[in-house]
């Protein structure tokens, strides 16, 4: 298979909860939201890696760690052979030029007081992408690339629709000519019809610019549509990774199965009244012992309580973290 661009090795991230005075006096230990609990992943050059999971499972945290918006509390991230976990200053800037991020919220991810031109110019200036004289031409080029109408450059974000704003976000990321794009819920806030436009653009750009894309989303249909490989996260861990087709057709982890089952199908004839998964995500502050999914898992047994399952191979390029290695479970 192709070469690894980014590799995530046992990454951990905690968000400490501030302790009060009395708690400190009483010697209450420091507690934390355990957002990432040892995530390991590889991103291959040129692929689209989809990351799915329920709200709060750590998708955004992982995405932010990937572009070094957050400092790691454990593990490391290796970019083309160099450990980038501790980069600062100019090194970090150089890394960021090559690994860029696009954000979820089309409304808050653009500075409302800067025109598109200012936004793009600033990024290019800071990274010394082009001599000043060439910047205006490059901006036209970029806008054309993301299919924004000519004359958009001097408008400010509020003059655009949500879909157009996401394109500006993409243009901003692309203007520094990165190799890897980390897209956190790129289209979740958009209407279906507009969603399709942006997804199409992303697919097209990826082909043309040979981009590597990490696509974080919770819309399973969408992830399936655009990803080469998909990783499923649950409570700060990756529980299953496989080629997209393989994962959706033959999910091996009970959580993945529940997730797929819960997604409404587009066929009115295929209705069921059975609930896919009972209960809710446990608190990321007090994690369950053993397998993190056991509290909601219909198949949990004693071992799940005491032992945390590791990611183990289930066929080519397919790994899952479950003690039971049955091919497919009966849906409950």
């Amino acid at each position, binding site marked *: 298979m192709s070469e690894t661009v980014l590799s995530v090795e046992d990454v951990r991230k905690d968000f400490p909860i501030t302790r*009060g*005075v*009395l*708690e400190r*006096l009483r010697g209450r230990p420091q507690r934390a939201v355990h957002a990432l609990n040892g995530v390991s992943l590889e991103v291959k050059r040129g692929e689209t890696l989809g990351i799915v999971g329920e709200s709060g499972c750590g998708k955004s945290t992982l995405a932010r760690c990937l572009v070094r918006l957050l400092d790691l509390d454990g593990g490391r991230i290796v970019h083309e052979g160099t450990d980038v976990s501790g980069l600062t200053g100019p090194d970090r800037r150089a890394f960021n030029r090559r690994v860029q991020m696009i954000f979820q919220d089309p409304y808050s991810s653009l500075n409302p007081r800067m025109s598109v031109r200012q936004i793009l110019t600033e990024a290019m200036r800071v990274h010394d992408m082009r001599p000043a004289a060439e910047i205006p031409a490059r901006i036209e080029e970029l806008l054309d690339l993301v299919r924004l109408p000519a004359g958009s450059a001097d408008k400010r974000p509020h003059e655009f629709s949500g879909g157009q704003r996401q394109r500006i976000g993409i243009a901003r990321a692309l203007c520094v000519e990165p190799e890897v794009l980390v897209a956190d819920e790129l289209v979740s806030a958009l209407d279906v019809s507009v969603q399709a436009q942006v997804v199409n653009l992303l697919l097209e750009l990826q082909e043309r610019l040979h981009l590597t894309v990490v696509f974080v989303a919770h819309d399973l249909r969408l992830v399936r549509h655009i990803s080469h490989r998909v990783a499923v996260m649950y409570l700060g861990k990756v529980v299953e990774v496989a080629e997209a087709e393989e994962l959706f057709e033959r999910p091996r982890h009970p959580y993945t199965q529940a997730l797929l089952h819960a997604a409404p199908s587009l066929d009115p004839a295929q209705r069921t009244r059975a609930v896919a998964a009972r209960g809710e995500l446990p608190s990321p502050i007090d994690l369950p012992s053993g397998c993190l999914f056991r509290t909601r898992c219909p198949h949990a047994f004693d071992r799940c309580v005491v032992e945390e399952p590791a990611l183990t191979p289930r066929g080519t390029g397919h790994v899952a973290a479950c003690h039971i290695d049955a091919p497919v479970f009966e849906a409950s």
Partner: protein
Amino acid sequence: MPEFIARRLVQLIPTLIFILVVVFVLVRLLPGDPASAVLGDRALDADVERINRELGLDRSIPVQFWVFVKSFLTGDLGNSISLRIPVTQLIADRLPITMLLTLMAAAIALIIAIPLAFVAALRRERLPDTLIRGGFQVGLSMPVFYIGLVLLTVFGANLRWFPVGGYGDTFPEHLYHLFLPAVTLALSLSAILMRNLRAAIIEVLDADYVTFARSKGLRTRLILFRHILRNALISTLALFGLSIGTLLGGAVITETVFAIPGAGRLMVDSIYGRDYPVVQGLTVTLAVVVSITFLLTDLLQAWLDPRVTK
């Protein structure tokens, strides 16, 4: 909740130390010394020196600071230089008056601000709103002493509804005497609160939970008070707490105009009289009182808004 209080109390310590130092330094920086301030123009140099020596002002600054800090730790704030009675007694006499005045002003401000804010918010951009806001604008633009004198002239001297200044002897008398000054003091606060509350109500008016409450078919009154007012008050309350501090310290002019023997006037008299022990003792006591007010409003806010304390 105890956690919350504990945190606030711990936070109070650096604040008080800071204030202690600032007050001490500020007081020493004031030109002129207590003796000549008290003795006036006619005193002979020898007398001035003698009295400053008696007050311990010839000692080095660090020693004076230590004496000052020690006085706080022991709770004995010394004697007033000009009035020659214990500062603690002075504070005990004067501070409650100012606190009562402030409290009344705060209550009046709320009583004025809340209904008017409702009217203004519900009739937004229409005549009642414009009138209310315009009226408050005028109130907000008038110097306190002028408002005070106008109120005194109209309601005191002309209509004779209220006594012209003074403080009275019994508690009901205090309330009666303090009414006009409290109104004077309350006017600008109520303008500020009204503005803030109006904005908050407008914001809350379209909140989802208000629509949801309306969809339940509840009475309008219930929606106004239970759902809208309470939420709108939360943000206003923080402002209210802060303003009480400002009021407490800002009562100087009102107290002068209305001849109320409060802490504000004492403070200014003491600054002018270079009455170091009083200035120091009173400032720090005021700071403590203000901090307690903040704490109380915070608690009130926590009670109104369960999200604050976890």
